[in-house]
């Protein structure tokens, strides 16, 4: 079959325990852009057991069609049954594109499809689109993000990618959107050689600020431990972590694991807020490769402003509550 005969933008609608993984909606959002270019149908593939109730939301979020598969063998995620089920669907419908969220589950499953479908799979793409040659490409980071590459899958179909979470905006759920819900059956058996023993809250989550996408950092100018709690509240709203410069470790307010700088941790978050941090060389050596740097300091001469993309000459004590308020308002 010619590659031109493969049609459809498929999104693997990952769900566990009856909850759709939010990144699926981001993929459906991005799929609109792709559809504007290739005019193909956007299809969400929903697998599990007794998951019919989840289908309408996928349509409300931008899918033109939802393929639903219910099977007891798919009740809980397991690589081999899911691989078998999805392979059968792809072989039947022959989509041109198949996207997965780059979640632990997506990255567990997708490589196995690469084998059974004999096609390409781009890992953890941060962007998708069509290039000047009208070729579908995926942008993917390599070498820890120091290099970006455009990956293309020229001959094989479907063109598959796992896609980094939170890269694309989801559509607002709109119940007025309409679409088709198709029920499918597959031939699968539960995997007798794989079992989930337990799934529980992790009792020892360790702080690793280096792995955090967002860091709210406090410096020497932070006046009290109570103010640090405010920083934590702000970090929580961003889904990030609190870091500090050395003085706040020296005075015992924070453990060394949260210290940023030459003698602490080097961090490269996508977004970094520096509050009451002056910006000694010791400190900036540990954070200057951060993506977007915001600095708040009462002194306009503070060296931290040399590194900042956004600068606010002001008092963190006013800035922090105002920002918390603003973020809460937007979330609500």
């Amino acid at each position, binding site marked *: 079959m010619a590659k031109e005969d493969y049609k459809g933008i498929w999104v693997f609608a990952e769900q566990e325990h009856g909850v759709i993984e939010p990144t699926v909606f981001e993929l459906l959002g991005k799929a609109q852009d792709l559809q504007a270019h290739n005019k193909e149908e956007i299809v969400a593939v929903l697998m599990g057991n007794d998951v019919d109730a989840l289908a309408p939301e996928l349509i409300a979020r931008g899918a033109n069609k939802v393929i639903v598969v219910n099977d007891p063998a798919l009740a809980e995620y397991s690589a081999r049954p899911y691989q078998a089920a999805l392979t059968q669907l792809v072989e039947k419908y022959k989509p041109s594109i198949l996207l997965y969220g780059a979640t632990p589950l997506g990255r567990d499953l997708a*490589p196995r499809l690469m*084998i059974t479908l004999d096609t390409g799979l781009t890992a953890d793409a941060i962007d998708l689109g069509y290039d000047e040659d009208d070729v579908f490409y995926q942008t993917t980071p390599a070498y820890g993000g120091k290099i970006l590459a455009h990956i293309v899958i*020229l*001959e094989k179909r479907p063109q598959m990618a796992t896609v980094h979470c939170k890269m694309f905006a989801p559509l607002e759920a709109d119940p007025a959107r309409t679409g088709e819900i198709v029920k499918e059956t597959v031939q699968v058996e539960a995997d007798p050689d794989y079992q989930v023993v337990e799934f529980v809250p992790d009792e020892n989550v360790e702080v690793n600020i280096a792995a955090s996408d967002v860091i709210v950092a406090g410096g020497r100018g932070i006046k009290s431990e109570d103010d640090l709690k405010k920083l934590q509240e702000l970090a929580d709203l961003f889904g990030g972590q609190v870091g500090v410069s050395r003085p706040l470790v020296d005075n015992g307010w924070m453990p060394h694991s949260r210290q940023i700088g030459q003698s602490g941790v080097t961090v490269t978050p996508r977004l970094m807020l520096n509050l009451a941090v002056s910006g000694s060389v010791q400190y900036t050596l540990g954070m200057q490769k951060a993506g977007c740097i915001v600095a708040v300091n009462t002194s306009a001469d503070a060296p931290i402003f040399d590194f900042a993309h956004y600068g606010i000459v002001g008092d963190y004590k006013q800035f922090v509550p105002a920002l918390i308020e603003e973020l809460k308002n937007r979330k609500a």
Partner: protein
Amino acid sequence: MKILVFVKQVPDTDDVALDPKTGNLKREGVQSMLNPNDANAVECALQLKEKFGGTVCAISMGPPQASRTLKTVLGMGCDEAYLLSDRAFGGADTLATSYTLSKAAEKIGDYDLLLCGRLATDGDTAQTGPALAAWLGLPQITLASSLAVEDGWVICDRKLGDMRQRVKAKLPAVVTVTGDLNKPRYATAMGLMKAGKKPFFTWDAAAMEADTSKTGMPGSPSSTKGVFEPEKRTTDTKYLSGEMVDIVKELVDSLEAEHLL
């Protein structure tokens, strides 16, 4: 028990940069090293061997220079090394790579457990382990942060955000491990001196009866069309001023526009 551990020689990412003239990766002066997560896999294999006895076979696909990485893991205590090296393996994506590794696993045979690092720091794909499991038709556990073997099953914890999942797979199985699993040992001086005397096999496609239409560039559906460095932000500071309520509004708008929220 017989454990296959898959390792990769990667460039030290601190050294990685693009040549501004050619747009290609600079090769000169780039140190290579054992992929960090693979060191965790090797450590795990050696601990299992210490507990249960058996053989640890280290396998790497790469150019002849990758023999250095294999000798390093022999110096850590692995028993045998297999270097899969052939011009026909060049330019492989994860489909072709995992195929090649699966052919080596089949040829070595009799394996109980196959261990990989979660991902390699050069490609950052995390795909080779599960793809290898698929070629071999085996169950898999990815992202293992703990590993135990009991009664023919491998039991692992997986850290998933603030949740912890415990899963088990029947041997033989493929497990990909994270840096949380253990602290890899260093090679010893004695180990390195003896590494040269341990069994070391260099296999090409023919030695593994690998189909060269499935290896290297011909076996790779995906290809790299171009590489580039992430856009460097200017450090021209944009100062926000006025009332604090307006400042934070403007800031949040800007961050949203940059997809940073």
